[in-house]
């Protein structure tokens, strides 16, 4: 069969392929890049001239060199913060994943806490963290660490689980326990998955650091952005956006290269495409599965307040939140403001979320059918998925203005790029044999899409959709805060500026709950679908 593999790998796959297919990818990407730059320059100098919105790339470059030291100092500051957060967040995630792997009983509880952390709305958590860590770099680093925690935890656990059973059996046959198996087999086997997780963590850490700067830093790109917006330094906003993109993408690529160097045997994989964990059957198990995480999260909540000895003025317990929502004198008012705003947020977020997912699938299909387009545009898409939302937001406002559509657009962007990358990768992994069968009947594009590409991409789509639930809500609240002033994001910011900590905690609790429920709904849909599409193949 080896000759077949060679043949399929290098044979001209599609008859009637476009001439552009023969152009080297680098050349194509460069050509597209130059075209984009030229269009950008043209727009900035004509349509958007004097708008203080779009700067021509030439001026952006000039500005960068003029203020190079300033930019590099701030970039260094944010990057350093992100690096510390990256380090601590990932170490914690990997350590806890190790614990969960060695002591399976704890798995569900640790997972629940990790997911809850992932679903916490950053913009409301930042000020609360600031009250614990005080002024300085504590909040940005903590936020950055929290931002990477969940994805790395999932990736590490997946990595530990993918250890070959036969190797584990060998360890066991020598009479050694789980710890030895973990040390000798699982840790090593987990490297590829962990690398995939760390890749995603790099841009996330950067985002956490930049949001954290809003809690009163003296340096960093986040603050510089706010200052530049206020001072009409349009070039500066674009320099920052480009630098952030380069650093975040660079982190992503460096870790990817590191992974290929460390484990050249391992296939490229994306943690966004990791299937949801399966439920054990049985009513008792399900009940335990449902209750244990809830109890653990509440215990964690109380422990958090107790350990940090936060004053009651700021610290609200689950009981306080309950009281504020249902028993206090102004409970009805709180409910109507929080849930009313939540409704707005969920509506705009759902629109953007669905639009982003559909757009991603459609684009992935286009890419898989028109390879030269993919080669030209995919590198850009990979880069764009790493841009911190804080930096993208002003750019999106530039094109869609400020309004409900802004939130929708930002959420769509948040869910679009990761889903596109995952779905395309999945479609690209469609077994050659299936494609050969289709080709042998001269099946058209539509038949390829219907029978091969779309079904193959379904697991990746659902996994991406699941991860996109919390990230979309995060994007929505950031957009509401920075651009639209609607929804629960605005409620949280108003509550915070007015020191209304009851409403702040209620909002955080409700929004986190919504994100967790959304995550689990998609996870359940994912398991059902995988089970139905291909029984026995889901994990």
């Amino acid at each position, binding site marked *: 069969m080896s000759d*077949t593999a060679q043949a399929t790998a290098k044979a001209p796959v599609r008859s009637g392929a476009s001439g552009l297919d023969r152009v080297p990818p680098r050349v194509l990407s460069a050509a597209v890049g130059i075209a984009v730059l030229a269009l950008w320059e043209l727009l900035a100098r004509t349509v958007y001239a004097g708008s203080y919105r779009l700067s021509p790339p030439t001026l952006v470059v000039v500005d960068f060199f003029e203020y190079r030291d300033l930019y590099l100092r701030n970039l260094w500051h944010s990057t350093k913060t992100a690096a510390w957060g990256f380090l601590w967040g990932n170490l914690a995630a990997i350590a806890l994943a190790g614990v969960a792997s060695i002591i399976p009983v704890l798995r569900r509880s640790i997972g629940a806490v990790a997911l809850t952390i992932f679903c916490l709305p950053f913009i409301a958590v930042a000020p609360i963290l600031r009250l614990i860590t005080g002024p300085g770099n504590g909040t940005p680093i903590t936020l950055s660490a929290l931002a990477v925690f969940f994805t790395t935890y999932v990736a590490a656990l997946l990595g530990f689980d993918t250890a070959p059973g036969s190797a584990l059996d060998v360890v066991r046959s020598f009479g050694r326990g789980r710890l030895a198996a973990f040390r000798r087999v699982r840790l090593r086997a987990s490297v590829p998955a962990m690398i995939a997780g760390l890749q995603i963590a790099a841009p996330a850490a950067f985002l956490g650091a930049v949001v954290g700067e809003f809690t009163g830093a003296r340096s960093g790109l986040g603050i510089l952005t706010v200052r530049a917006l206020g001072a009409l330094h349009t070039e500066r906003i674009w320099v920052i956006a480009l630098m952030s993109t380069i650093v975040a993408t660079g982190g992503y690529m460096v870790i990817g290269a590191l992974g290929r160097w460390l484990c050249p045997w391992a296939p490229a994989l994306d943690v966004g495409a990791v299937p949801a964990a399966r439920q054990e059957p049985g009513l008792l198990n399900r009940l335990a599965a449902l209750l244990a995480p809830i109890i653990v999260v509440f215990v964690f909540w109380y422990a958090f307040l107790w350990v940090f000895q936060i004053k009651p003025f700021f610290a609200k317990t689950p009981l306080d939140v309950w009281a504020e929502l249902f028993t206090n004198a102004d409970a009805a008012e709180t409910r109507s403001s929080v849930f009313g705003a939540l409704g707005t947020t969920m509506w705009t977020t759902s629109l953007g979320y669905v639009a982003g997912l559909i757009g991603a699938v459609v684009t992935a299909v286009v890419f898989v059918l028109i390879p030269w387009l993919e080669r030209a545009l995919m590198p850009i898409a990979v880069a764009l998925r790493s841009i911190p939302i804080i930096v993208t937001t002003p750019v999106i406002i530039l094109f869609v203005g400020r309004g409900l559509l802004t939130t929708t657009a930002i959420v769509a962007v948040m869910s679009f790029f990761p889903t596109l990358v995952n779905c395309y990768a999945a479609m690209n992994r469609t077994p050659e044999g299936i494609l050969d*069968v289709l080709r042998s009947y001269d099946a058209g594009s539509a038949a390829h899409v219907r029978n091969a590409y779309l079904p193959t991409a379904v697991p990746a789509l659902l996994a991406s959709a699941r991860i996109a639930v919390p990230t979309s809500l995060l994007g929505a609240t950031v957009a509401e805060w920075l651009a639209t002033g609607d929804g629960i994001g605005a409620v949280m910011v108003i509550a915070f500026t007015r020191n209304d900590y009851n409403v702040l905690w209620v909002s955080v609790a409700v929004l986190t709950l919504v994100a967790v429920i959304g995550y689990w709904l998609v996870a359940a849909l994912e398991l059902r679908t995988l089970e139905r599409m291909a029984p026995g193949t889901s994990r």
Partner: protein
Amino acid sequence: MARRGAPVDVVGVGRTFALGGGEVEALRGLDMHVPAGGFTALIGPSGCGKSTALRLVAGLDAPDEGTIDMDGASPDQMRRGQRIGVAFQDPSLLPWRTVSTNIRLALELVGRRHDTKAVSDLIELVGLQGFEKARPAQLSGGMRQRVAIARSLVTEPDLLLLDEPFGALDALTRQQLNDELQRIWTARGTTTILVTHSIPEAVYVADEVLVMSPRPGRVVAHHGIDFERPRTRELLLTDRFHAEVEAVSASLHRSEGQVVQLDTDPS
């Protein structure tokens, strides 16, 4: 028995792949003739280009030199005319479809989606009654291969191309499927090319066994197999079967020494 399908004429076919920085010449000067309704087995050492040859005939790839003609049509025309059925070592079933809808896939692709009788006939022919609603993951390896073969036959192609379809199966299942393949071929009479590693399998099912040389591959020996049909398992125990297997084996052995010398007249 009704002989149908297209004759296949392969003349002087060569195919070279770019691989890494260099080139790999998979086939050079491949000649092969399969009569209409014939059953030819292609055998050769690993990496000799058997599968490449099959993909060329299937129109999934194009030769760099030489011609392939099937009753006046090129492989690509045959493929576009949807007159070819293929089955590979990997059954390549769609995991999200059931047995019957996997078989129906081929009909859908040729625009005969509603031909339910063809599907049920094929399921019966390959002995999968009762498993119509099962999904690939619930089937054994042998059953999956039956589905793949049923799928390749359901459109009643003029040419059936099998690339080691039973390569991954155990000996018992393999023999069983060889019997069924023979039965099906006898019933349908489709021109069939089978690529295989197994000499006994080739001798058991085919009218003619072609032995290929190592890369660059070409046909270096022809063995006409004229055992009467239907062939049964008793045949496997006979001396003449063994003699035929020995002869093919000797050719194959000889061919492996022929990497450098170019024998242009293999017969």
